């Protein structure tokens, strides 16, 4: 949907995922959308270099989120939110309901 604007499908998926969930890491995003890990990693790298995303190490995982200092962040988020409204309902629901609350180790999912 935003591919003509953002230049690639992976870039759109990364940004939509982070907009919906606040943060994410490449393998998780690639798995969620069923797309290749390499293009996702490449786009996240590019978005970080461009100052749109920032990353922090959490445990053994490098997590990415929006850079609050990115000057066009409010406008970008506005576009992403609008695009999210046009996503297929099942994909949108899956994204927004993706579990982020704590779950005790050993407990079935």
């Amino acid at each position, binding site marked *: 949907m935003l591919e003509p604007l953002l230049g690639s499908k992976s870039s759109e998926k990364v940004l939509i995922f982070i907009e919906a969930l606040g943060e994410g890491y490449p393998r998780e995003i690639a798995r969620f959308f069923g797309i290749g890990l390499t293009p996702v990693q490449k786009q996240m790298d590019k978005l970080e*270099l*461009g*100052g749109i995303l920032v990353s922090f190490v959490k445990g053994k995982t490098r997590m990415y989120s929006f850079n*609050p*200092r990115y*000057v066009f962040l*409010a406008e970008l988020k506005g576009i992403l939110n609008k695009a999210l409204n046009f996503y297929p309902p099942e994909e949108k629901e899956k994204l927004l309901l993706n579990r982020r609350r704590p779950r005790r180790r050993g407990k079935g999912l």
Partner: protein
Amino acid sequence: MKNIKRMTQAELAAFVQSHLQTKGIRVVLSGGAAVAIYTKGRYVSADIDLVDVSFVNRKKFIDAMNEIGFHEKNRYFIHPDTKHIIEFPPGPLSIGDEPVRKINEIKYSTGSLRVISETDCVKDRLAAYYYWDDQQSLEQAVLVAKYNQINLSEIVSWSETTGNMIKFKKFQNKLSLLTSE
């Protein structure tokens, strides 16, 4: 010309900036190196962040930096004769939603250095404290504010607009404690 090995951080930043200028690339010093300059070495940083304000492609940076002996490693530029690491964060030069308008120019024997103003330097550090609760950035903001003439009312109104008055008060308290010492 002084050898890179003997250049201070500010001299090196001025040297790189002046070289880039001859290639049509304009950059402005921000981040920790600006703090080091405004605190006269009370804060030390190995990084030199030169914000790209001419929006050129990466290849142009790589070519220009290679000419003066720097090479790219993990997005940064390094040189065998210096411990300083150079990075080119993307523009526009801004703090929060606001464009940075005032730029100071400092002359060194190695070239001319364009650097964000003292007040913007404080705001830049405070932004990191406001967004990520980074205590080191708070300490740096306090140091710059202590040793320079800054526009405090501009910082107050910016903090108000961004909803960070509680954190601003903490900055103000730390600053008064330090200035009363």
